[in-house]
């Protein structure tokens, strides 16, 4: 059930300004409200997009969270690729990487 609460944490953070205020004021207290493993809590403390992706957080939830963190689009895609390189394939859900990790767009990060 832990992935459920990990996603619930992010779902509520993404949609509720009150949760965003708590996140900024006292992240540890906010984390206490959810039944999370140490690995999940640490991923949230560090904003570890790559690990959260591999743990199976729904991609839409993760995309909105990355936007909340202010991560630039192409960096966000690279962080997911790096997560797979470091931790292996996505462990749950339907947002697995099915390509080889290559980019599907001609556009890239603005220099």
């Amino acid at each position, binding site marked *: 059930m832990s992935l459920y609460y990990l996603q619930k944490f992010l*779902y509520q953070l993404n949609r509720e300004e009150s949760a965003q205020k708590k996140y900024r004021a006292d992240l540890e207290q906010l984390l206490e409200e959810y039944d999370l493993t140490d690995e999940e809590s640490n991923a949230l403390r560090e904003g570890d997009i790559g690990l959260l992706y591999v743990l199976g957080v*729904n*991609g839409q939830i993760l995309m909105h969270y990355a936007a*909340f963190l202010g991560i630039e*689009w192409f960096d966000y895609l690279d962080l997911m690729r790096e997560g*797979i390189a470091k931790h292996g394939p996505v462990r749950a859900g339907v947002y697995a990487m099915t390509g080889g990790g290559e*980019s599907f767009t*001609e*556009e890239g990060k603005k220099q």
Partner: protein
Amino acid sequence: MSLVYAGVLSHAPGITGRADLVKNTAKRDEFYAKLDIQRQEIEASGAEALIVIAAEHFANFFMSNMPAYCIGIGSEYEGPIEDPEWLRIPKTKVPGAADLGTRLTREVMKTVDVAYAEEWKFDHGIMVPLHFLTPKYDLPIIPVNINCQGPPLTPLHRAWAFGEALRRACDSVPEKIAVVGTGGISHWPATPDSGKINEPWDREFLDRLMRNDREALLGYDDMQTYRDAGQGGFEIRTFIAIAAAAGGQGELQFYTAELPIFAVGCTVARFSLDKAA
């Protein structure tokens, strides 16, 4: 008959959020121009409210209590939930249609069990369409959600039945109503494969959709869709519901796979309402 317009369009967040990154600006601008034609068609229809059948992305519904179908009956909504700078759409209030939404819900319930909601926060799935179709946010909106995100998902034949029920509901009220379905066809959004598009699959689906071929549309299987069209392909439910609501054939006004930076094959189409459901 009070359904006065039915159409479909894409909603991917990149359509607004990554507009400035696009290299193929001519194709982007052609897409935007088609969306503006859709806006004009809805306006010309005299619609007094716009139903948006969307596939939301965890702005309101979660696996704690996930409805297969939900209709908004609130008097006002807000959005986007996303960082406005990221989506390039400012946070705003959007008028609802509480009384009309309630009457439609009551009618739909005669044949399809639906949830309803007075509170609803819009994510890019609704805000991107509204940005183009009612940019002043002055047309009352009735949001509708089909769960395309958290499996188990509603079967396609139920999405069809829902579309038919919505048509009956629209035809039971005196107001003029427009309806759009918004989703992706094949796409792999929010994965490292973002930008991947299976154009042959899209064109085959759009052919079935424009012919409004019920049997062919309901012939898709979620496992095959996942393999060939990605998890984003589950959103065909919104397009299928529109085909069922419209009853008539479609006219594809725009499709391109040449804007992968938007992470979806960009689509605009309208339907004939000749044949009542």
